[in-house]
């Protein structure tokens, strides 16, 4: 069984279509990244999958269940990391995590989750006193305390400093190693490249490309760019097979600044949303 199966998903707000016939399949155990500009339909799609929002049409199965009709058992098997919550300001981190642990049939150990999320130094601090990045870690802790089979991470590292992001990536890899399926939405392409087994780009309410970080949008088949500088100035050659070009340059001598570049994930991404947006 796939963790997430979506076919022909549609949702409009009034006369504004947000999602127009979206198809998506996420296999169990996968880390799947959903990329796309603001307003492309990422959050709407995720919220429908989480059971937070009704859909207008299409078929959706999350852990084999329609999220629009799902019950408590289903909710105990998913974890959601919210994007903009500011709740529980007067409770301490530990009190908040402990409270949520009690809602689940088989929660993780509270202390273990606090440490896993890098909050051990802040366990007895009030949530109100935390920095934005620390607060996001509490969101993550609340998302994983119930030992979810499927975890929704909606822009989880917004507001993190580089070190905190690296730590968070390690946490995602740990969870993934334990078999948790993860649906990640993010603006950071390096994050998607570092974490995702597969990813999809969403633009104007539908999926415009899908693949692995290596193959997305034909990245593996795109021509490489060879650039160098010599007495004649700057040169650039695009080629499907850059090796002979490089070999020829090696024979010439007096070449500086030699670079062979495959298009980056960002190039591919900008191309994809530029073409369709």
């Amino acid at each position, binding site marked *: 069984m796939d963790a997430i199966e979506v076919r022909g998903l549609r949702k409009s707000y009034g006369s504004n279509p947000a999602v127009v016939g979206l198809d998506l399949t996420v296999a*169990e155990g996968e880390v799947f990244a959903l990329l796309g500009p603001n307003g492309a339909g990422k959050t709407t799609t995720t919220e429908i999958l989480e059971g937070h929002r009704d859909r207008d049409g299409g078929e959706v199965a999350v852990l084999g269940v329609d999220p629009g009709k799902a019950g408590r058992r289903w*909710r105990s098997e998913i974890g959601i990391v919210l994007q903009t919550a500011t709740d529980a300001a007067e409770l301490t981190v530990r*009190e908040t995590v402990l409270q949520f642990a009690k809602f689940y*049939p088989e929660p993780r150990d509270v202390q273990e989750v606090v440490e896993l999320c890098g909050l051990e130094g802040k366990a007895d601090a009030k949530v109100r006193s935390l920095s934005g990045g620390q607060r996001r870690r509490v969101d993550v802790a609340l998302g994983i305390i119930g030992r979810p089979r499927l975890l929704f991470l909606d822009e989880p590292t917004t507001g993190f400093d580089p070190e905190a992001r690296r730590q968070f990536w390690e946490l995602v890899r740990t969870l993934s190693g334990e078999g948790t399926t993860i649906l990640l939405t993010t603006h950071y392409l390096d994050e998607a490249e570092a974490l995702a087994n597969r990813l999809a780009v969403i633009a104007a309410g539908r999926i415009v490309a899908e693949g692995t970080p290596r193959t997305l949008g034909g990245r593996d088949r795109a021509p490489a760019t060879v650039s160098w500088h010599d007495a004649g100035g700057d040169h650039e050659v695009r080629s499907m097979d850059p090796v002979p070009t490089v070999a020829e340059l090696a024979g010439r001598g007096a070449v500086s600044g030699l670079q062979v570049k495959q298009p980056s994930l960002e190039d591919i991404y900008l191309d994809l949303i530029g073409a369709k947006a």
Partner: protein
Amino acid sequence: MTAIALPTTTTLPSTLGNGLTRGAAELRMFFRSREAVLFTFSFPAIVLVLLGSIFNKGGHGDTPMSQVLAASMIASGILSTAFISVGVGIAADREDGTLKRLRGTPITAGAYFIGKIVLVAVATLAEVVLMLAVGVVAFDLKLPSDPAKWLTLAWILVLSVVACTLLGVAASGLAKSGRSSAAVLNLPVIALQFTSGVYVAMSALPSAMVRVAAFFPVRWMAQGFRSVFLPDGLAAEEVAGSWELGRVALVLGAWCVVGLVLCLTTFRWTERRAG
């Protein structure tokens, strides 16, 4: 890939257990929040001290006006800890993501409401004790020795708290945002206290005002509390010349039903503008 499916035999935590967990969290959050303790919890007592000190003379027979106020204003306390705190609390829960977060967990709506009920029950009990303490210490209010009076106090308290809490849940939907909710909910509360004989004696009010206020619960709450804490001779000062406890029960009971219906038909998990 390893299957980590939960055995479906594990039982989900009970609604009651989760409700009590929520209740403990609600109480901690309420009493740790300076604004809540100051504006919701202490406000009625502060107003009582002020009004009672200003209107210390007058009153009826041997009973100074300050004691009439002390009895009537128990209703203010309940309006604050049941109606306002629930209405503002739910509007804030909707805005700050509490409700959305809870909706993504296996907790039931019932458990969320049990949490609110625990908060209201504890906060209201503490509020009534505080109001009575102010009345006794500052204004020589006499606590009744007749057990029947305490029984009356108990049922009026229960009906008042249930009606005010349910109406608070329903009213939480009126405010567009958590921030505006305190202002939106305080307006009817202040207005009703002026027109229902809480701040000003019923005999001083225009008769049209008295007739309108008779449709709302506040007048009957205040009248009921006066019947408990004031000498029976003062019943003659009431609009009907008696305490009308039967009618108190009837009107408050009716508002419990209205509140429940409003709750069930208007409660929203999310903010209006979020669609």
